[in-house]
């Protein structure tokens, strides 16, 4: 059967993608940030997942205000990098896993998570930047990717609790798939940042590090934190952190921290990153 072995959490700042695409990773500004992902590249080269379930949010690229799905699952065979207004990122096409994705959609809906099924979708920096951070610049991504798009643009996003429960349901869905597949779940976005209004530029390292601690050791407790705490403490866009709870819900209650990294700034944003391995239910 398919099994989830580990989870990866990472910020998905668009400027990181631009720094990679424009060859700026060795600049003084960026070097310390990318240094935090060197161990991660080695880890994933060793881990060799067959499939990544990648939880992210679209930033008005694939979805405008015409249609705002709270939870959507990408069931297509492939996903093109989106043109976000300055041309698509020069990264490989993202290959999906339609068989597992459709299986998950069926199982999740019957498990009372009413997923939106997406058969055609371009994927923006929210999905491609985490792949670039973990895999560098390969000619093709080394594994299949199932996008899970979460609305965090239109208030209200799903609650932290709902996200955590979705992660648990994703695990049940994956483990009921008969094919032998190694699956890693990515939770992306955050950490503290605010892109809008007079409070733009907000960073709260204390909140971010407490979030990392609690996500590791007490995820159910973290899942009970209400939206306003994220918006107030981590900024209007810091609320993206609820997506990390989907990844966490898909793992064992006990996890081993294979890697932890925190860095400020990447453009307007605090970068946080975790690799968590299952360590017992």
């Amino acid at each position: 059967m398919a099994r989830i072995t580990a989870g990866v959490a990472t910020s998905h700042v668009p400027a990181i993608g631009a720094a990679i695409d424009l060859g700026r990773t060795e600049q003084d500004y960026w070097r310390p940030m990318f240094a935090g992902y060197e161990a991660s590249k080695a880890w994933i080269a060793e881990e060799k997942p067959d499939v990544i379930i990648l939880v992210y949010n679209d930033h008005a690229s694939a979805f405008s205000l015409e249609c705002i799905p709270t939870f959507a699952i990408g069931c297509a065979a492939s996903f093109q990098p989106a043109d976000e207004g300055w041309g698509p990122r020069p990264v490989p096409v993202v290959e999906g896993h339609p068989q597992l994705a459709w299986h998950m959609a069926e199982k999740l809906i019957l498990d009372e998570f009413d997923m939106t099924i997406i058969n055609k979708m371009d994927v923006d920096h929210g999905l491609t930047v985490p792949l670039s951070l973990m895999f560098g610049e390969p000619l093709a991504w080394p594994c299949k990717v199932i996008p899970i798009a979460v609305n965090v643009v239109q208030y209200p996003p799903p609650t932290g609790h709902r996200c955590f429960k979705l992660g648990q349901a994703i695990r049940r869905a994956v483990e009921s798939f008969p094919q032998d597949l190694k699956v890693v779940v990515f939770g992306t976005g955050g950490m503290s940042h605010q892109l809008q209004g007079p409070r733009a530029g907000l960073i709260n390292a204390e909140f971010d590090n407490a979030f990392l601690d609690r996500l590791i050791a007490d995820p159910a407790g973290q899942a009970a934190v209400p939206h306003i705490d994220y918006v107030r403490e981590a900024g209007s866009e810091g609320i993206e952190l609820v997506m990390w709870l989907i990844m966490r819900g898909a793992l064992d209650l006990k996890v081993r921290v294979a890697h932890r990294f925190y860095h400020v700034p990447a453009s307007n944003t605090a970068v946080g990153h975790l690799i968590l391995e299952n360590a017992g239910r």
Partner: protein
Amino acid sequence: MHDKAFDDIPGTILFDADRSREGFHLNQFCMSLMKADNRAAFKADERAYLDAWPMTEAQKQAVLRRDWNGMLELGGNIYFTSKLAATDGLSFQQIAAIMSGVSQQEYAEMMLHGGRPIAGNRSKSEAR
């Protein structure tokens, strides 16, 4: 309608149902700038391009004046208004500096030194 507690957070505009309803055409106008032909048409005659959208006059004026905070107050969402910024050749960091009332240099310096601190920016009562 969101919980009023959100209104206590300083310098922050929550993109809730009321704002989304009010800003639908403003945001969809911004979305149209994802296409190069539309960007060219907008740049050639901004007023005429805006008049093709059922936006309020106040929204159109905010766009023409590039009043970035004003657009948010009239229902704009930052991920949409940033497409107008991109059309002008401005980055997220550049409009963030404008929205927070400082020069781009000052804003970049603030970010390099750990960003805008949470102390004093948590609630309006605290900020006072």
